[in-house]
């Protein structure tokens, strides 16, 4: 079986990071452009999907354009020994689309747990946050709600090596 070299993998990544060709045989189109074989590309894509290097393959939606106009980042200051437990609980809440731990940057930034809530409007998102506070008993936790009011850029990540 043919395996792609590291260099060929980089080239493939660069070629698809802005999307697959919208042609009848997109992998054959890529194969032509990159001087690789179509089966080798499909095999590589399969491997990347299996190992989670590619999280999903499909239409990548701009949430703003499909009615999710209120996007709030809710940040919390959770004691270090509790943050992972809470994160694992919050991940299952239907309103939360993203949930991460990030470092505090004291004194400017005391927050270590980040949740993203995408909703149709601001009032609804605020309601959901209140509900989350009640459900997880976070009344006494220092937090902040940062609505996004303008989107300047949204594209896919650029992973190709810059020379």
């Amino acid at each position, binding site marked *: 079986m043919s395996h792609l070299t590291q260099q060929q993998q980089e080239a493939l990544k660069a070629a698809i990071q802005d999307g697959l060709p919208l042609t009848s045989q997109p992998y054959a189109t890529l194969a032509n452009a990159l001087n690789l074989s179509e089966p080798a590309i499909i095999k590589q894509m399969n491997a990347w999907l299996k190992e989670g290097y590619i999280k999903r393959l499909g239409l990548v939606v701009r949430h703003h354009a499909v009615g999710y106009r209120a996007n709030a980042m809710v940040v919390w200051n959770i004691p270090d020994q509790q943050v992972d437990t809470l994160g694992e609980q919050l*991940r299952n809440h239907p309103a939360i689309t993203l949930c991460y731990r990030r470092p505090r940057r004291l004194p400017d*930034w005391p927050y270590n747990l980040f949740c993203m809530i995408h909703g149709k409007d601001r009032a609804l998102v605020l309601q959901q946050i209140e509900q989350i506070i009640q459900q997880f008993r976070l009344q006494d936790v220092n937090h902040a709600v940062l609505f996004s009011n303008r989107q*300047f850029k949204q594209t896919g990540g650029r992973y190709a090596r810059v020379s």
Partner: protein
Amino acid sequence: MMTTLARQLLDLYQRGLPLSPTPYADMAEELGVSETDVIATPRQLREQKVITRVGPVFDHHKAGASTLVAMAVPPERLTGIADYINQFDAVNHNYAREHDFNLWFVVTAADQAQLNAVLDTIRQECGMPMLNLPMEQAYHIDLSFKLAWQD
């Protein structure tokens, strides 16, 4: 206006695009439409800015280095600084948010050294308070949207 086919594609194919030599023909057969229409629809959705692309979403951490950056920009300079930040290919998301740290952007690069180089340039050029907030742990990072069609 969103066509029925556009809605079906958005509902069914935010993940799981068939990984075959002819994915669009496979989808067309599944949906009982023509391959030509399945290929034309994402083009239209891209022009309408509903989607950015049909393709892979990489795991930021497995695919390279990435971080979230927050910057405190004087409000009257926000648009100018946002435009400057957008010029970097390494910047893929860039939002204004309601906070003293009012500009939030994601930087991705092939590795940590290239990432740091971009951050250093931005820090020096802008000279504004900046927080570098790399992800330490992901609890939930699956951002695909259920679409509730209203019209």
